[in-house]
């Protein structure tokens, strides 16, 4: 993943509400799956297996954060395990098709999450994180773009 993307995600995560966090995990996972597809089509085995490890970790993170006292968690678990089996199939056969199937499942679920998160009233989880204010100021003959960090503690994972 490029460093710009990592920065983007870091900012998103630090400012995320619990529901948003799930969506970000999905987006991250789908991004990685797309990356895997790239590697397959370029036949980059080494990078593929490297990225596969991260992808599996992200999925694992989703599985492990399920609270199984809710019925939906059970359904989600089944689907995550399906995605997992597709990931291992892709690494065994080194083909794109299983990844496409995995992605499709995630995309369908993502729509649901996007919809659900609209009703969320919780505030962001992490406090005292980096806040970014951006704006334009007009000076004599210049146009300044300013980016201000507050003095709160910045996060780097």
């Amino acid at each position, binding site marked *: *993943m490029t460093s710009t993307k*990592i920065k983007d*995600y*870091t900012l998103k*995560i630090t400012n*995320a509400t*619990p*529901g948003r*966090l*799930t969506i*970000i*995990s999905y987006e*991250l996972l789908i991004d990685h799956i797309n990356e895997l597809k790239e590697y397959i089509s370029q036949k980059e085995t080494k990078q593929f297996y*490297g990225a596969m490890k*991260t992808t*599996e*970790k*992200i999925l*694992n*993170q*989703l599985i*492990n*954060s*399920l*609270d*199984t*006292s*809710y019925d*939906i*968690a*059970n*359904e*989600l678990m*089944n*689907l995550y*395990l*399906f995605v*997992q*089996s597709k990931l*291992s*199939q892709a*690494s*065994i*056969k080194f083909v794109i098709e299983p990844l496409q*199937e995995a992605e*499709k*499942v995630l995309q*369908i*679920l993502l729509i*649901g*999450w996007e*919809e*659900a*998160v609209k009703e969320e009233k*919780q505030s962001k*989880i*992490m*406090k005292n994180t980096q806040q970014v204010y951006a704006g334009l100021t007009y000076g004599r003959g210049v146009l300044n773009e300013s980016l201000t960090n507050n003095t709160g503690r910045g*996060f780097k*994972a």
Partner: protein
Amino acid sequence: MRINHNIVALKTLHNMAKSNNSLNKTMERLSSGLRINHASDDAAGLAISQKMDTQVRGLEQANRNANDGISLIQTAEGALGEVHAMLQRVRELAVQVSNGTYSAEDRKAVQDEVKQLQNEIRRISENIEFNDKKLLNGDLDRRSFPNDESVVKIVSLSDTVKPGNYGITVIKEAEKAKVEGSESTLTGSLDGTISINGEEAKISATDSAQDVFDKLRTLGETVGVNLVSYADDGNGNPDYTKAQTFEFGKNMHLVFEQKELGKDYKIDMNGSNSALLNGLGLKAQEVKGTDSVATIDVDGTDFNATATVSTSGNMVKVKDSDGFAITFNIQEGTVTGLQSYKDVKAALAGVAGTDEQKKEAYVAYTGTLLKGGSDADATAAAKSILAGLGTEISDAIFNESQNKDTIKKAIPDLTDAEATTLGAAITAKIKIDATDDATIEAAIVTAGAGFTPPTTAEEAKEALVAYKSALFSSTDVKVLDAGPLGLQIGANEGQFMEIRIENLSPEALEIDKMNLSTVDGTQKSITIVDNAINKISSVRSKLGAYQNRLEHAVNNLSTTSENMTASLSRILDADMAFEMAEFTQKNIISQAGVSMLTQANQRPQQILQLLQG
């Protein structure tokens, strides 16, 4: 307030909500960070909340562990599913080409495909990993290693092999079938057909020497036989240092050798024109390889007396009741020097009896000797199989000229001169006048005066045992308790389960030596693949059982499990998965509030960590 206090507080708040309402207030205070900031603020309150916290956090981690276990098994299971499909394909191919309607070329093409599938299976068994742990290469099985890796290597262990010490002695290595042609006297080619193991090569009178050699080599490749031509050494034998291009009229020798070891791999040669065959220095004949010979030590080690040994090529299988099975692979070149069966066989040339009887007599002799019997006992045991036997075996084994090396192998501390003296003393006693071990040991003590060991009777006894086992290639194999993957699936000690997956490489599945290019080979292959498929099936069902157990563990570990009625059914079909996903999507939307909570255990920090790769 420092930020990390806040995180811990959040976590505690979350844990508490799931566990116990009665402690709600205490915990809330704790999480707010207001009332208890130091132990001195409310010592008892802190102790209780910490204990709760420890247990709850332990359970949460155990839940994650169990989930990781499920994921790991899924990965292994996915890989095995592929291997299974590949083996089915191999079996299909084997059945297909067993049909007589297929030509040699067809079978060759099939063999190429099988070779590729074997490579795929090897790649899977070597590469499939979960979180850097290799799953199918035997790493997740009991750790086992021989004391001497130059003697045997361990291929696989069954689940019922208990940790312990297992002694094995290799008496003879497997040999390849070999046809050494005499001088080829042809000055030009002749018409005729030469067949090896049922496959044919048509040779015509217009062929050049190169053509003839080429046809024979291609024929050899089809049936798994190597062909090399050598120059004559001047005595009518091939000169193995001079491999040369085959030419007519140069007294060259054709040497055929099976690629695989053991008596299952033969060279069966026939020809339609004996002038052609004989002119090439060959004749109609069938030569078989020989299997290795090995014995196990049932007295001193953990093998049961009921264990049986069977060998095929250089593979030794020890089996016992209750599914006990260890497979060893004898390393090439381990049996050298005076202990080699070849020398003994040469010494036994004058004794009446079949090769099979001679081999058995030799095994009986060495077996008795290794169990602590004297030369006389051993010879008597061998004589019961080979009536005409004198002292030929012991003469060949206790060979004075190579004694020094054997002694040094047994007692590495000795100098060359000491070893020679001691060796001579032992050989003289064993071969000439000793009837029991005590006499030999006394001789060792006398000869060993002035050496470091062996000077006492006890040391002499040890030296004799070491000497005897140094004559043959003997090693102990240690099987340890360590190795299987442990999963901590409870918050406390002992809530533990073990996952074992044996080595599933082509060697361990025994499919590495299949040859589908011959009719004979295809028949054998069907059985070989069947055995491999059975093995994979049993591992898969074992994995299924593990997964069921883990799912139970997850159910129990979930703080309120009454909602969790449906077990995790495995979705196999992609269309089914899409349907399910749609359904779940609708559920997520309609129960937006609840669904947000289902993934509520997510921590931003964890995701941030993943971003760092």
